[in-house]
């Protein structure tokens, strides 16, 4: 079968949606995902939130986030079905596995290179508490210097 990927589905329902309707919606989504051989990793109900802009006539909405592990074909089906439900005023599906993997790699790379640098200088690979504080102070100095230098040179 096709590869399983991770998606995040967010949908917004009108503020007056009942608990029951939300539960129904969730089971519908879960049913679709299951049919494609996927699983729902996590469901988060953010509750009522003010919308940044009006959608239809709604100013507030209930946000629900579902983290889904399933093959790519689900997205099309979910998209199609969610568009039909009238108590879903907005939805979005985003693929996240690649981005998270990239972020993980970046984190790992940074950790490795820091450890390498530190070992080369004859220090333990992990910085101690005291060092960390001193480094932050240095950063502040640097920032001030940069800001000032920029203003002097880069004036248009």
């Amino acid at each position, binding site marked *: 079968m096709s590869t399983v990927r991770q998606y995040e589905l967010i949908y917004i329902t009108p503020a007056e949606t009942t608990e029951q309707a939300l539960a129904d919606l969730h089971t519908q989504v879960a049913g679709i995902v299951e049919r494609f051989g996927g699983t729902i990793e996590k469901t988060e109900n953010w509750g009522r939130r003010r919308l940044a802009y009006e959608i239809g006539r709604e100013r507030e*909405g209930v946000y629900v986030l579902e983290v889904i592990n399933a093959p790519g074909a689900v997205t099309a089906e979910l998209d199609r079905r969610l568009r039909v439900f009238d108590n879903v005023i*907005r939805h979005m599906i985003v693929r996240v596995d690649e981005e998270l993997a990239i972020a993980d790699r970046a984190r790992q790379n940074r950790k490795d290179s820091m450890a390498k640098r530190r070992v080369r200088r004859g220090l333990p690979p992990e910085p101690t508490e005291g060092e960390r504080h001193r480094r932050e102070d240095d950063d502040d100095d640097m920032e001030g*210097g*940069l*800001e*000032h*230098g920029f203003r002097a040179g880069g004036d248009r």
Partner: protein
Amino acid sequence: MSDMDKGGGRFGGKDGGKDGKGDKGGRRGFFRRRRVCKFCVDKIDYINYKDVKTLAPFIPERGKIQPRRISGVCATHQRALQTAIKRARQIALIPYVTD
């Protein structure tokens, strides 16, 4: 460049005598540019579109995406920030426009 001998003056600019926030600094906030990328400094690898708090500083009143020449964000993170903001807009966490 009269103050090049001033110890610690990393970039030795014209107005090096003034420190940090000189009188120019207050000019409608235009020169309060952060020259360092906030995401690099804070070591944020993944800019989450659901987290409005991290996105908010990069969205001026008008609702546009702040250019990196002003915010000082590095190219890599600006790209990630851009997609994050656009996603957040889609699900009405952030406005497209505000008048």
